[in-house]
């Protein structure tokens, strides 16, 4: 999560209009999930990869590592569909275990493949958004979409506080380590508990201070801020429109079929 945050500030696509990127990512995601077909998922997955790595200049190795995270879940999740224990071997593969077979059908293999590629493509849409758009810009888009203020304000504060608290937690942990706070398992557990409670106290204190500071700038219960927006470029908008219409057509076609 911190890695994604760091990468998105370096992305070459960072200064592309945020609404464009948001619309692109969300529409592609919707088509992927609605169609559930590889004909949509494969191009979406590839285009996202090309844009993020090729245009955004996110290092390929990082991108692959990030994609491997959902892979673990996918493998665990799809194992249940793929594997059957049966007395009769199915058509795709069969490993005998005593009198039984660990087996699967061709149909289920195809289903699993389709599921995996759809899921990866969907995840790549979200990665595209989060690796190329800063949180601040995303909040700006959500504000434009008239999401409830409360939700956006919470996201704004939480996003800022994640880093503050992580910093504090790291500082406390370092201080504990320098006093042998992680000498063995039991001290490690105790140190973690102490750190967590110290962090909680800090969080409460900090939020009180922050409230005072915000009040002293005439805070009245609503956080109003200005966002900077990069202008949308005509050719980018056209490209996105063409691409999404294509995806829409493929989606419709795959559903009818």
């Amino acid at each position, binding site marked *: 999560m911190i890695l994604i945050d760091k990468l998105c500030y370096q992305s070459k696509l960072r200064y592309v209009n945020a609404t464009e990127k948001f619309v692109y990512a969300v529409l592609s995601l919707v088509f992927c999930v609605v169609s559930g077909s590889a004909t949509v998922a494969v191009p979406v997955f590839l285009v996202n990869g090309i844009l993020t790595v090729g245009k955004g200049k996110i290092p390929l190795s990082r991108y692959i590592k990030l994609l491997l995270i959902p892979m673990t879940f996918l493998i665990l999740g799809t194992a249940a569909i793929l594997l059957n224990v049966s007395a009769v071997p199915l058509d795709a593969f069969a490993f005998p275990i005593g009198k039984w077979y660990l087996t699967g059908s061709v149909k289920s293999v195809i289903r699993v493949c389709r599921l995996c590629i759809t899921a990866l493509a969907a995840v790549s849409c979200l990665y595209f958004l989060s690796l190329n758009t800063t949180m*601040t810009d995303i909040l700006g888009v959500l504000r434009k979409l008239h999401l409830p203020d409360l939700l956006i304000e919470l996201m704004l504060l939480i996003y*800022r506080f994640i880093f503050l608290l992580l910093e504090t937690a790291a500082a406390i942990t370092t201080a504990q380590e320098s006093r042998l706070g992680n000498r063995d398992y039991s001290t490690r557990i105790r140190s973690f508990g102490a750190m967590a409670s110290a962090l909680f106290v800090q969080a409460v204190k900090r939020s009180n201070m922050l409230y005072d500071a*915000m009040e002293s700038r005439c805070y009245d219960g609503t956080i109003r801020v200005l966002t900077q927006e990069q202008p949308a470029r005509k050719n980018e908008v056209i490209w996105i429109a063409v691409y999404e219409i294509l995806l829409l057509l493929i989606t419709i076609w795959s559903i009818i079929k």
Partner: protein
Amino acid sequence: MKQEKEWVIEAEHISYTYEGNDKPALSDMTLKIRRGSRVAFMGGNGSGKSTFFLCLNGIRKPDAGRVLIDGEPVSYTRKGLLDVRRRVGIVFQEPDDQLFSAGVYQEISFGILNLGVEEEKARKEVERVIQELGIRPFQERPAHALSGGQKKLVAIADILVMDPEVMILDEPASSLDPKHTKIVRGIVEGLTERGITVLMATHDMDYAFGWADEIVLMHEGSVLKSGAPLEVCSDREALEKANLEVPAVLRLYEKMREKGMVSLEGGVPKTMEELERRLV
């Protein structure tokens, strides 16, 4: 246009005790601050400086006594508080306690939008302050990737954009490197030039002696001694009580005067540079 009063802030016998504490943070404190002046607040931790500052823009309401801004008592209604906070801005000691947004631009725009300024004008003001304080080079970075000094500049911009009459800086130089200390001090000079009254808490006696028009020594929630820097620093007893040292330039000047090593013209020098120039 209201006629400008000589005293921009008057505190009359204010006391304040934090909930759950026996000892008052402020007890019977009385102080007047002249418009356009530079006032240094000095005193140990827990001497009541920060609490006093919070009383000045209505974040804390004194249990007793009253605060007057521009000769008018602070009204603790919504409208009254808005007005006071527009006039008196506080830059908090820890930028991390003040910056609530990860975006620098968003952060700075918060205060001015709360004043009900139109978006178009607010945008201009935010841009102006960003330019003025040299924030441009790191404007696009998230708050958590800024250095301490950069965060401090943003914290100052937060308040400056609201165009206050009085600006309070709570230990602005604490945890800053020399480079940023110098930048912040330069900004403070600029504030005075444009007529903003500056109140600054500091532990740096040498700096306060050279910078301030008035030094306020605080001790246990009230004013121990206040006046022109030379007057305050001549009261060795008060300095000792507040655990403060005589400014180096003053100490050196006195010794050199005894030995006739310095020209007496122009009275007591305020800074080391001035003393250097007057060596004979």
